[in-house]
């Protein structure tokens, strides 16, 4: 017995010693190891979240259309597309050389079944709210009939709302846990550990193989920013969703650093008409709340300076954004107080606002600013899911709202359509805004971009929001890999991660 224990101990010791001798994270130029912020929401494209699911979904699924870094629509499974003259019918030609991982063929009927599945999806359905019907015209052509013109649909499809899955898997209801797509990689179940790491191996004869040069891909969902950074330092990952606090060290390490604005931070006004909080119905009060917040100081102290100071919800450097407006509400507390006094609120007013742990980092600066203005705030504390339900029931609330690359989508999601943060779009209550938004909705091409920019100017001048700054999403990668950030994707899809 003594001998056996000794032998077992010796074997264990040798095994342990040998394991120590192995490389901590073998890398090769053909391996891409991503440190992501979140685990995959679901392998079902109708339930997946565009946010951080990009690397997972783009590995195993092909979309009908994709986006380039500027938000331009790119062909994928749909090779060409045309709108009818009235913009109410979209016709798409499809590839004919694609099979799903379970052997099923991709064709027009499969595309229609997928689109119907996506339209019914709780998360993906937002892309298809204006769709009346999907039709298979022939083996490789589909039609999408719209109830009204929708300038955001193709953009949302490219963003991650048109991933095609095997119709058999959709019918079987197995997609939640087992992906079945036609993507450039397949999930390696044997190597993957749900919740910890997902390994993908390259499909040998994928139709778009050149866009996906890495042979092996691993995605590690690591919620803790320090854990992700340590994984990068130790060589386990070579692409990381970064914490801006680590940018200096990343420079010292010689890593590639890429950033793009992703979300705006500030006050979302819900009650522009003053129905529930009379002062907010006065544009001077809203403007005062723009002058009063020192966006640059907030960005530096809370956002580690990783972002752009602006008063607009249209992403900096993108169409629709007007850089000349950025100085419109330069920090000026005296002017803010004067505007409040002019509106009849020299002594401030009372307001109740929601608060959640996620937004608590901005609470002290908000408290301080409101106090200087004489505004007395009562905070209602709640958890994040409750915040998303209840915050829009308050006249205004602190928020961080994701932005879109596409100006028409920005106008739609920030102004026109019902969203959790904008339950009752109120632009139509202001005649000038109504006409500008409607003009933008009916225009096309460059004319539409110009009209959207005009609407943005009016919205900003009317202080439709109090935007403090636009926060960046930042990615670190080893020098041999380049990441192209895309506004609208919290983590870019795999086509935006390439060898240098």
């Amino acid at each position, binding site marked *: 017995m003594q001998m056996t224990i000794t032998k077992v101990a010796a074997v264990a010791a040798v095994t342990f010693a040998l394991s120590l001798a192995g490389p901590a994270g073998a890398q090769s130029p053909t391996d891409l190891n991503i440190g992501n912020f979140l685990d995959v929401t679901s392998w079902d494209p109708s339930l997946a979240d565009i946010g951080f699911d990009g690397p997972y979904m783009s590995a195993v699924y092909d979309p009908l259309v994709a986006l380039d870094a500027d938000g331009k629509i790119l062909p994928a499974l749909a090779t060409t597309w045309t709108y009818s003259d009235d913009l109410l019918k979209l016709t798409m030609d499809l590839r004919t050389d694609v099979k799903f991982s379970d052997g099923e063929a991709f064709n027009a009927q499969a595309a229609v079944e997928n689109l119907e599945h996506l339209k019914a999806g709780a998360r993906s359905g937002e892309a298809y709210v204006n769709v009346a019907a999907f039709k298979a015209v022939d083996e490789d052509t589909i039609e999408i009939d719209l109830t009204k013109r929708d300038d955001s649909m193709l953009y949302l499809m490219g963003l991650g709302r048109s991933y095609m899955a095997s119709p058999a898997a959709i019918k079987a209801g197995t997609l939640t846990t087992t992906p079945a797509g036609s993507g450039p990689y397949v999930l390696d179940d044997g190597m993957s550990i749900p*919740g910890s790491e997902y390994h993908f191996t390259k499909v040998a004869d994928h139709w778009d193989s050149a866009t996906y040069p890495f042979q092996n891909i691993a995605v590690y969902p690591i919620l803790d920013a320090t854990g992700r950074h340590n994984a990068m330092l130790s060589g386990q990952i070579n692409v990381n969703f970064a914490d801006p606090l680590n940018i200096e060290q990343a420079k010292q390490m010689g890593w590639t650093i890429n950033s793009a604005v992703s979300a705006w931070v500030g006050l979302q006004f819900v009650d522009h008409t003053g129905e529930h909080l009379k002062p907010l119905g006065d544009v001077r009060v809203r403007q005062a709340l723009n002058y009063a917040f020192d966006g640059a100081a907030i960005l530096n102290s809370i956002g580690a300076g990783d972002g752009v100071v602006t008063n607009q919800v249209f992403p900096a450097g993108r169409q629709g954004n007007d850089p000349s407006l950025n100085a419109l509400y330069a920090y000026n507390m005296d002017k803010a107080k004067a505007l409040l006094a002019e509106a009849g609120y020299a002594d401030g007013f009372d307001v109740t606002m929601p608060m959640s742990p996620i937004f608590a980092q901005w609470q002290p600066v908000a408290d301080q600013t409101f106090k200087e203005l004489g505004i007395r705030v009562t905070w209602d504390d709640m958890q994040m899911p409750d915040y998303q339900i209840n915050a829009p029931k308050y006249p205004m609330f602190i928020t961080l709202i994701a932005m879109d690359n596409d100006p028409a989508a920005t106008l739609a999601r920030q102004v026109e359509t019902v969203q959790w943060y904008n339950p009752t779009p109120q632009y139509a209550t202001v005649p000038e805004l109504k006409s500008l938004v409607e003009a933008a909705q009916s225009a096309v091409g460059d004319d539409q971009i110009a009209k959207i920019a005009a609407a943005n100017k009016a919205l900003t001048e009317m202080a439709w929001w109090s935007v403090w700054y636009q926060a960046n999403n930042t990615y670190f990668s080893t020098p041999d890999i380049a990441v192209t950030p895309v506004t609208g994707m919290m983590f870019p899809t795999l086509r935006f991660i390439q060898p240098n």
Partner: protein
Amino acid sequence: MIAFIAKRLAAGLILLVAVSVGTFFLAHAAISDPTVSLLGTTATPAQREALALKLGLDRPLVEQFWNWARHAIVGDFGVSWRNFQPVGKLIAIKLPVTLSVVTFATIITALVGTIFGMVAGLHPNSAFDRAIKAISVVLFALPGFWVSLVLVVWFAIQLKWFPAVGYVTPNQSLGGWLRSITLPAVSLALGAIVVVAEQLRNEVIAVNKQDFVRTLRSRGLSSWQVNVHILRNASPAALTVLAVMFVSLLSGAIVVEAIFSLPGIGQLTNSSSQIGDIPVLLGITVVSVVFVVIVNFLLDIALGWINPKVRVK
């Protein structure tokens, strides 16, 4: 003995029911509408209502609890609201990760804590004893997450002996598995070692002064044999502390699992809490309580084996 076991089981059952009821109603009170986090903010009210119907959230809370409890009695904890996977299966995947780390941490704690406690207790006020005390104060003062990060910086980033994050199953690689759980286990063990060592040291000092030890020595037993007797008499308190540590390490693993990105029960608890996946939370609660009951039961048996005076007649 049978009566003792029956009493222990009954107490465990009462604890299980009480904790399950508490968890169920507290979770429902904390999460007003789980469908929002489950379906996202883009879901329509109709889609949320349909999911609520599917999950049975439209029924009275007492009825929901009864439906859960009558299935749980036969080992069916229902399905996760997030992905409709059986809760039992999810826990079965995650539990080995946490148990690996916690068991390894407990073994390290027991071995190192015993050595430190014995040496310090047999040589009170020696340099070693004072060093152990000093280390105890330092390790107690340092936050566990900070110690974890220091270990990562030294052993994962600088020396590259261990991975900074992630878990490898024993099936994939036995060596990889050992490497993946070593730093988390050491992180958990460091704080526990000093508690066990300190407890054992004090007991060893007390036992060493007793008459029977002097008698053993006067009868010519070797120091090693005498020390075995001292350890056996001094260990019950340390063993009790170790058992309590095992249970607390199970819950403490949530921080270590986050730092080392381990897909264990702690991570499952964290993610399920955030989205309001109540069936998973209840399943984890039941398993945790069962572990508490089992550990306490094993502790009673171990104490009886070590010290026959406390055996149940």
